[in-house]
């Protein structure tokens, strides 16, 4: 692409680089729902927009399906648009995705779906490229932040050349890598929205769909020969008539290149990076199979390229067990695979990683207080839960299930029906975060009301989407740029769904809140139907200590603490730790936010409010 002036290099996170690409390409409408590792794409785009003065609508949507539909409609009018999400978010958006592939688009439409091999922060290691294959749209697979920015340009070019949605699939090691990235000046497109009525396309009935499918297949045929997205030979010095060849995509290609150099194989084994894993270029497939006797494929996390190289006698990869089927393709694994492939033998560098410390809810987290009350109110209950920080309640024995966004409510309903005839029907308590409730909890709650399901729903309302960095929820009343937007109150929705018991409490008021949860449990047992308690207290991490979060309680543990460990196991506050020498629990004043909830936790009442003179004692306690 000739023309646009290059400006100096900047250190950018992969997600910032993707957002930069969107800005440079003149994207006019961008939507997203937050999810690690994709969350920073939209917030970075807002920052780029505000710094450049570009006109662009960027918003958080209630969920990925709605986000997809908003951006897709903008593309129908000829504007460039984009939607970003994590891989499991694409499951939610898969319904419009499959259809949009048939209908195609007008303005360039880019779907960014970030995968999480490992998985580091997800329920699955699923490969979004398989979703692209299923929808039959092209997918690009960047190996670095710098390439991610370039691929947004390529994606818009493909999308407008073929009138198709195009997927860009970064992984965690691209999204959350940082690199010096060269930038370009944004283009000015000055397009105006225009909707051309064409029901046979935009509102196609099955009869038209068949012809749209045919068009789609013809587009894919051409995409499999499009020069600019063809695989690239990374090591031109390697003789291309070599017996063996390595084909890689995504970050595995980057690690592969580095390791071939370290092993002294850079000039011996050709390494191709596949930019567009689907559809794989036809000529490339022929070249590989006509010229090379052994082909090793390195890709994450499913054998997408490998499946398209259908010669089982020559292709090595996940399907013949040469590459492991699960887990991240970390460079040490790739090193071993490449060494064996080159006939060098394994080094046996199996280093067992130390497990490290598990994550936990932050000091002062209101979820911890809500969970503590819940366990006291219904100690023998079944606790269905959901996706968010509060999934960490698993450490506290407060999370029995976690399936997918919104499932806490649907699963509570299912458990209710399963135990319906049981005389010892257990109490059912579902916990769901505020953002997750909006995302996918509402239809399940309506269903529970209609079916008369008796359970308690605790909506953990901390006023933000905390786990992904504090994006607003539909109740927050601010947009992606921090400016005011409309808002919808959770209690209004709950009552509108037909729920008869709906009360709001502050989990920091430990005794009152426990009483409230008990009342809800009684309602569900005796009166029938869902009972909803909204546990409301801002996230201290996001809202900061200033926003009415801190209570300024100075707590200390008195000298009669016998180190029984009850508070550590049942409450697990990072600010409480056992002293190795004395065995007593101590308060770490650096971590303590002064919520004072732990005052109610010690059954022996040995966690105490500091006396005025006790302040120094408490402070001194942490650094002997």
């Amino acid at each position, binding site marked *: 692409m000739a023309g646009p002036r290059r400006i100096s290099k900047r250190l950018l996170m992969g997600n910032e680089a993707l957002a930069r690409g969107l800005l440079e390409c003149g994207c006019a409408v961008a939507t997203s729902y937050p999810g690690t590792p994709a969350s920073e794409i939209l917030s970075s785009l807002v920052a780029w927009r505000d710094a450049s003065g570009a006109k662009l609508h960027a918003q958080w949507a209630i969920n990925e399906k709605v986000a997809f539909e908003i951006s897709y409609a903008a593309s129908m009018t000829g504007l460039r648009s984009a939607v970003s999400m994590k891989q499991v978010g694409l499951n939610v958006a898969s319904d419009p995705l499959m259809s949009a592939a048939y209908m195609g688009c007008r303005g360039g439409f880019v779907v960014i779906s970030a995968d999480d091999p490992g998985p580091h922060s997800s329920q699955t290691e699923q490969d979004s490229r398989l979703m692209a294959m299923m929808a039959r749209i092209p997918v690009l697979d960047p190996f*670095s932040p710098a390439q991610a920015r370039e691929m947004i340009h390529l994606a818009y070019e493909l999308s407008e050349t073929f009138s198709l949605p195009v997927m860009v699939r970064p992984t965690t090691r691209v999204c959350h*890598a940082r690199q010096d990235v060269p930038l370009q000046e944004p283009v000015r497109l000055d397009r105006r929205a225009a909707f051309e009525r064409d029901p046979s396309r935009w509102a196609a009935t099955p009869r038209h769909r068949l012809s749209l499918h045919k068009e789609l297949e013809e587009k894919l045929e051409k995409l499999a020969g499009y020069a600019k997205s063809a695989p690239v030979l990374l090591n031109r010095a390697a003789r291309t008539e070599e017996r063996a060849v390595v084909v890689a995509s995504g970050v595995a290609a980057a690690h592969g290149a580095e390791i071939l150099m370290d092993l002294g194989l850079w000039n011996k084994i050709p390494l191709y990076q596949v930019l567009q894993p689907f559809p794989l270029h036809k000529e490339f497939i022929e070249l590989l199979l006509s010229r090379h006797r052994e082909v090793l494929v390195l890709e994450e996390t499913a054998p997408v390229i490998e499946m398209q190289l259908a010669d089982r006698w020559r292709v090595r990869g996940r399907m013949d067990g040469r590459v492991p089927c699960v887990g991240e393709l970390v*460079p040490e694994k790739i090193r071993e695979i490449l060494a064996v492939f080159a006939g060098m033998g394994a080094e046996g560098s199996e280093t067992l990683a*130390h497990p490290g410390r598990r994550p936990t809810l932050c000091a002062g987290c209101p979820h911890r207080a809500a969970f503590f009350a819940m366990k006291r109110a219904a100690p023998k209950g079944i606790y269905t839960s959901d996706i968010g920080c509060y999934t960490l309640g698993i450490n506290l024995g407060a999370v029995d299930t976690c399936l997918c966004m919104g499932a806490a409510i649907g699963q509570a309903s299912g458990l209710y029906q399963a135990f319906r005839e049981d005389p010892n029907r257990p109490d059912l308590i579902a916990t769901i975060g505020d953002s997750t409730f909006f995302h996918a909890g509402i239809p399940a709650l309506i269903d529970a009301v209609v079916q008369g399901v008796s359970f308690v729903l605790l909506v953990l309302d901390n006023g933000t989407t905390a786990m992904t960095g504090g994006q607003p929820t539909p109740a927050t009343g601010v947009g992606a740029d921090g400016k005011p937007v409309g808002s919808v109150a959770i209690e209004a929705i709950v009552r509108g769904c037909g729920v008869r018991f709906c009360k709001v409490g502050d989990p920091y008021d430990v005794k009152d809140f426990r009483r409230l949860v008990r009342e809800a449990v009684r309602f569900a047992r005796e009166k029938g139907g869902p009972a909803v308690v909204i546990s409301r207290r801002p996230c201290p991490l996001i809202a900061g200590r200033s926003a009415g979060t801190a209570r300024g309680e100075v707590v200390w543990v008195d000298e009669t603490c016998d180190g029984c460990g009850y508070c550590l196991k049942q409450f697990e506050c990072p600010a409480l730790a056992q002293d190795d020498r004395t065995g007593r629990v101590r308060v770490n004043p650096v971590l303590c936010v002064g919520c004072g909830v732990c005052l109610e936790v010690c059954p022996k009442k040995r966690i105490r409010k500091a006396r005025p003179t006790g302040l120094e004692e408490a402070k001194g306690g942490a650094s002997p």
Partner: protein
Amino acid sequence: MKTSRFQMIVGGLGGQGVLYVTRILADVAVRKGLPVLTTETHGMAQRGGTVVSHLKVGPFWGPMIRPSCADGLLALAAESAAVFGMFLKPGGWAVINGRGPLPEVLDHRRVFWVDADGLAMKLGSPKAANIVLLGYALGKAGPGSRKSGRGFFCSIEEVRSLMESPPEKAKKSKETAVLALEAGFAEARRQGG
């Protein structure tokens, strides 16, 4: 031309500022015109759990460091030294916040202990322990230190100048952070870095 390569692991617990230290060093590299790659953990992988970032300065392709390949390790918590020690190459150096005992994985590595928490507390900014440790590491393994093997790609002056006038978009460090950097450096030199 052989260009020098520098690989470092920064390990710690969520909230200790692992990413902040990594970000500063990566920005210094960009300012020096050196190619840089880092990778880090977010989301569920944080929240007080173990956090690690990889920093690679020089001509690299991928953002991750392989076991036994890192030149240096910055352990913001003593327990992180045991967790991430396996990344250090023989002869590599580790700078650890805390005091012994030495984890077995660090045999045959050069190990420096410093009470960065204590020094930060003395400065009245307990959360700046990460910067104290960085300053200390620059004193022990930066240019002009007595170490052998591969040390930092930058000097304390370059880090300080970046903290005082950061690139566009990055937040300016607080004055206390610069003091913390210097306090750590001075401690290393006092011990004969």
